């Protein structure tokens, strides 16, 4: 079992948890957090390199590094792991954000408890991304959710009790649907007389879920994951939750946890139930299409920085689900890229907001101004994050969005010319409009917050970023720029996953 490299994505956090148990002072805690996150970063880099090397030898297995260990044998539950390009992308994203998050919470109160929960959360996240067994996947999914409650509740600010409760309950509400969907999938996973299985790869191979059942199970799983992916109208946990969460938690949550939603929608809902995905995608296309513009419009008039960003996340994550529903490889690649991109830049955003808030003790943009003169470093980073968000070429947002638009347009045109209506096309164009609205709210914030005269003279005495803050932000900016400048690397990494068999039903 421990010869499989992927297991260490769970083992390392567990060791970290144990290590934290022995920590006596903040220095040791920091040491554990940093060592652990560096180890995870190294691990994901190693897995990436190995993965590419193996793929280069012409290996076309759907997943690599697979391993399966029987767990609850009578129920056919295994601890099954495996990764493809998408999972690796997500693993890298997670480890980067955990790394940056550790630095962003350098001076947190009650560090031991904080890091305990934070690492428990990342255990869930990593476990989720390496799992190919529906049960373990779901288990890790829930492991990742619950620490949020305490992290927000204890270390949050504002209406933290309300927000923490709302977030937890709404996400758990999603996972209620999800659980039903997963169990349903299990019972229809194998053809008549075959052995039932939770293994995603096997289920996909059998493709035995009856169409009628797919039409019931698909919405269950899609909504279940969609709640975490902030799909309209189940997104309202996101603004409140993010607004109350402490910096590192917002980073992890928006950066990684929301990606669980998109990833799950793809890996479970669409991958396993392509027929229903094709039949029912229109409903969710409408919802996610609404998410995209709706989130952006809402962000335009909010004055709390975190609310703005949360709505922006609604918009961007809506784009992820939107693209996934287009059911073609270009759009899906774009969706995964968007997950990466949004994860990084939104983590950057939340890190910066946290840092600014930590200094000014307000997040209301009408109460601030001229930050560029006071804390130029943070402000420049904010501008960069903003530019990434509104899709400036050279940063990650652009490539992701363009891939999505090209893919969606392709899907839309194909549908239109096949005489199947113009829904996809229309919603593609609507989604495209978001690039303008995004520019509006990003520039509004940048203009009000960073530029202009200093609003409050008390702010003049504030200091710029400390070294750990710089470290955290620079890491993220470098990653954002790396994706933006060398997209084809990631594109190829992800693209190889969308092998034809995924689209077997879709006729593509």
């Amino acid at each position, binding site marked *: 079992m421990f010869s499989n490299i992927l297991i260490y994505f769970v083992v390392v956090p567990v060791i970290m948890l144990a290590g934290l148990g022995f920590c006596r002072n903040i220095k040791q805690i920091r040491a554990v957090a940093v060592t652990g996150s560096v180890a995870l970063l190294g691990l994901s880099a190693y897995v990436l390199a190995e993965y590419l090397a193996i793929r280069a030898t012409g290996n076309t297995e759907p997943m690599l590094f697979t391993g399966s260990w029987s*767990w*609850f*044998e*009578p*129920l056919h*539950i295994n601890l099954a792991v495996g990764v493809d390009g998408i999972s690796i992308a997500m693993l890298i994203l997670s480890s980067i954000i955990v790394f940056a998050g550790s630095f962003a919470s350098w001076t947190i109160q009650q560090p031991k408890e904080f890091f305990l929960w934070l690492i428990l959360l990342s255990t869930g996240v990593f476990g989720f991304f390496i799992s190919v067994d529906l*049960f373990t996947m*779901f*288990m*890790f999914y*829930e*492991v990742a959710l*619950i620490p949020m*409650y*305490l992290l927000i*509740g*204890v270390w949050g600010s504002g209406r*933290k*009790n309300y927000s*923490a*409760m709302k977030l*937890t*309950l709404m996400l*758990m*509400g999603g996972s*209620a*649907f999800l*659980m*039903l969907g997963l*169990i*349903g999938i*299990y*019972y229809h996973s194998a053809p008549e007389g075959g052995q039932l299985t939770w293994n995603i790869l096997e289920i996909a191979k059998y493709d035995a879920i009856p169409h009628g059942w797919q039409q*019931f199970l698909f919405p269950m799983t899609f909504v279940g994951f969609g709640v975490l992916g902030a799909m309209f109208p189940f997104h309202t946990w996101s603004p409140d939750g993010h607004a109350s969460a402490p910096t590192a938690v917002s980073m992890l949550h928006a950066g990684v946890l929301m990606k669980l939603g998109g990833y799950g929608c793809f890996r479970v809902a669409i991958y396993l139930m392509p027929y229903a995905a094709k039949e029912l995608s229109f409903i969710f296309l409408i919802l996610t299409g609404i998410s995209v513009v709706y989130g952006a419009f809402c962000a335009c008039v909010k004055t709390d920085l975190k609310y703005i960003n949360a709505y922006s996340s609604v918009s961007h994550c809506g784009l992820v689900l939107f693209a996934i529903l287009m059911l073609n490889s270009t759009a899906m690649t774009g969706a995964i890229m968007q997950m990466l991109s949004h994860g990084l830049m939104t983590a950057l955003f939340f890190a910066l907001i946290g840092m600014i808030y930590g200094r000014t003790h307000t997040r209301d943009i009408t109460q601030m101004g001229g930050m560029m003169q006071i804390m130029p470093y943070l402000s420049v980073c904010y501008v960069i994050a903003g530019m990434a968000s509104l899709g400036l070429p050279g940063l990650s947002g652009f490539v992701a969005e363009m891939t999505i638009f090209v893919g969606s347009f392709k899907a839309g045109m194909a549908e239109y010319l096949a005489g199947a209506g113009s829904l996809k096309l229309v919603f593609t164009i609507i989604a495209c409009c978001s690039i303008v609205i995004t520019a509006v709210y990003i520039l509004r914030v940048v203009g009000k917050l960073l530029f202009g005269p200093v609003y409050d003279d008390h702010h003049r005495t504030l200091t710029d970023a400390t070294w750990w803050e710089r470290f955290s932000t620079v890491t993220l900016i470098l990653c954002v720029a790396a994706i933006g400048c060398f997209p084809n690397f990631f594109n190829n990494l992800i693209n190889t996953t969308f092998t034809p068999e995924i689209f077997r039903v879709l006729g593509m």
Partner: protein
Amino acid sequence: MDYSQFLAMKQEIGLLAVFLLVFLYDTFMPRGAQKGLPVFTTVLMLLVTLGGFCSYCMAPGGEVSAFAGMYVTSPVIAAIKNILNIGVVIVLIQSIKWTNSEAMTMRRGEFYELLLVTLFGMYLMISGRHFLLFIIGLESASLPLAAMVALDKNRYESHEAAVKYILTAVFSSAIFMMGLSFVYGLTGSMYFNDIYFALTSQRSLLLVMAVAFVIGGIGFKLSLVPFHLWTADVYQGAPTSVTSYLSVISKGATAFAFLVVLNQVFGALYSQVWEVMLYALIILTITVGNLFAIRQRNMKRFLAFSSISQAGYIMLGVIAGNAMGLAAMMYYILVYIFSNLAAFGVIGAIENATGKVSMDDYKGLYKTNPRLSVAMMLAMFSLAGIPPFAGFFSKFFIFTGAINQGSVAIYVLVLIALINTIVSLYYYLLVVKAMFISDDECVVPNFRSACSERLGLWISVGGILALGIVSYFYNSLLELTGVSEMTAYFIG
């Protein structure tokens, strides 16, 4: 007359032996040695538990029937009794401090004697295959409990709870027996087996009413809505150790008995009669239990409603009506025992130390008593079904087991149950919130809980952590039930 048949009842005999020893100890040991009684009983009970494991391990397997089918035991039944035994041992460990307290000096022995008799009654409920034996078991399991509820003489609530309990319990058993009389009238026998076969072709209003009354009678002990209303008052009024016993052991045993009765007596009526009833009961139980739990501030009352809604989830295993459902149910109860006992352990420890049982008193507990709050939090998470704690697995498996039944309606039922888990999560989190998040000054000072309490908590917490992740427990349960007779009728 073959009295050697008594030898089939190894576990019951072991239990009665303990009862006898405790009785003798209590009666004849000098006053100075009386303080040793709790430990004495606990150790004996532990031995019985271990013995139960051994006998179950050494058992040739398959079903042993005695007294012309009036009594049945099998590996599964032995395992069920063992599960209850484990719970009893933990309860006993946790109650050592309480029974050794000043107020309990005069009633120490009686507490143990009554407890053992109720356990004996539960054994009979599980093993009995004749309604006469069953009802004797049921009464043995509830009447002495009323006396136990009244043990806390200094508190008025304790008396009030006892009255409420005994009156409603007798009413319930009257209804139950009315139902039984209808069954008898329709079938002419009290043997489960005979009734089962006699009922295969009968459908009448009388039968339906009989089933409803029987379900009411057993549902009363299981506190299914609408037969649950005594629960909260009794849980609140009873001494904490008794409450924990009531909420886990009594409930667990009754759940098994319920399963047995429904399957082996009314198995043939499944789809026509009691499936629908159970649907309604489960939905009501979970929902109403949750709704009441939301607004409770007294921890014991809070856990009462929580246990009501948990009973609804346990019933999902009954409705599944197959080996998987049975295994899931056994597993659920096992996990539930550990989780709930952890919660009660903390409540008991705090109550013994300070007398506080209100949720408001728990505010900021983490700052003064971090370990207790962590134990409580784990219990709450496990009850709410949060991974990686055992409660998650048990919930997942019981849902899986239920859905195995396969109809569309069960999906709807499970969905409703799942949505209710959100509500339950809400109130479990309220406790966590009070302990960890609230900024208020804690009224409970830092204190060192007794050795026994700590031991009990460690065991419970260990169970919460290990039962889920270590798949051995569930796997072996499922292995056992795969060849079980308990569901055989239903499947056939």
